[in-house]
């Protein structure tokens, strides 16, 4: 069974950009959420192997999602894809258990690099 990957971003452009930039060899069912609350309800309802997570979002931001994933010990990998590129923010999300940090805009090269590095493709 193919892996399910969740793209969580409040911007339609960012979701489409990311979806289109995923490596073609990455075999996964892609689903999307447009804020943190939506993402958590999906994560609680079904098995998701990998999350591409934006940070600055309305309702519940990416840091909030990471905290909930950690608190509930959910079994999914998280790649943060964000425009907030301050070193302190990167450090914070890594401490909260993110696998990697990708600076927006998420290009095919950047995604392929990081996914290859962590054996996802």
């Amino acid at each position, binding site marked *: 069974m193919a892996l399910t990957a969740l793209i969580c971003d*409040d*911007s*339609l*452009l*960012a979701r*489409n*950009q990311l*979806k*289109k930039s995923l490596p073609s060899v990455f075999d996964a069912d892609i689903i999307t959420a447009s804020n943190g609350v939506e993402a958590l309800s999906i994560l609680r309802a079904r098995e998701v192997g990998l999350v591409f997570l934006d940070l*600055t*979002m*309305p309702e519940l931001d990416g840091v909030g999602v990471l905290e909930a994933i950690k608190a509930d010990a959910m079994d999914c990998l998280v790649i943060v894809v*964000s*425009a*907030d*590129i*301050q070193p*302190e*923010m990167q450090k914070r999300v890594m401490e909260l258990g993110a696998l990697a940090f990708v600076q*927006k*805009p998420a290009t095919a090269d950047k995604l392929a690099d990081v996914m290859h590095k962590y054996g996802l493709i």
Partner: protein
Amino acid sequence: MTELHFTDVQRDCLQELVNVAMGQASDKLARYLGTFVHLQVPAIALVEAALLSQHFASRYQQQSATLVSLGFFGDQGLRGETIMLYQLANVGVIAQLLGYSDDAVSEAEMLTDISSVLTTTFLSGLAEQLENSFSYAAPRILSSRDQYFADKLAYTAEQWQLALQVDIRYQLTDYSFNCDMILLIPGEAVLRLRQTLDNILADF
């Protein structure tokens, strides 16, 4: 008159480009100030330039504000002017943080420096995503601690057609620092911008 309307999809696209550019500007500002900057989603609004001064006069009430302007010029008619509006409640704290002395000349210098860091980083980030490149005029102060700043804003806005208002709320670690950024662009640049947004959208 150029039709100023943007579709929802074009607006979402522009909002995301602004977010990415603003992330880069915040990072630069954080390094400049030596502190962490809490980044909120900047709210954008597209309005007719002529309605701008009224909006800010009522938002800032009777408070005085300092306005700093920076012109930018890109390829294919994409050009305009950014205006940073500063309410001055926290200026003293920032001056202290950055080691500027506590007088009017230093305050003007500091706000010019901050404007320069914020707007050039922001605009460069935006230009890169629009596959354009901008050159910049030197920043200049339009109005300093002026209660009647709205008149000067109206005078400046008169030369342009569309205003992209970007509300910036920077929450620094220990205090908040609010400023507003306005991008003023002429009608032909509006058409150019919309065309570029459509090209970006067509790719995805």
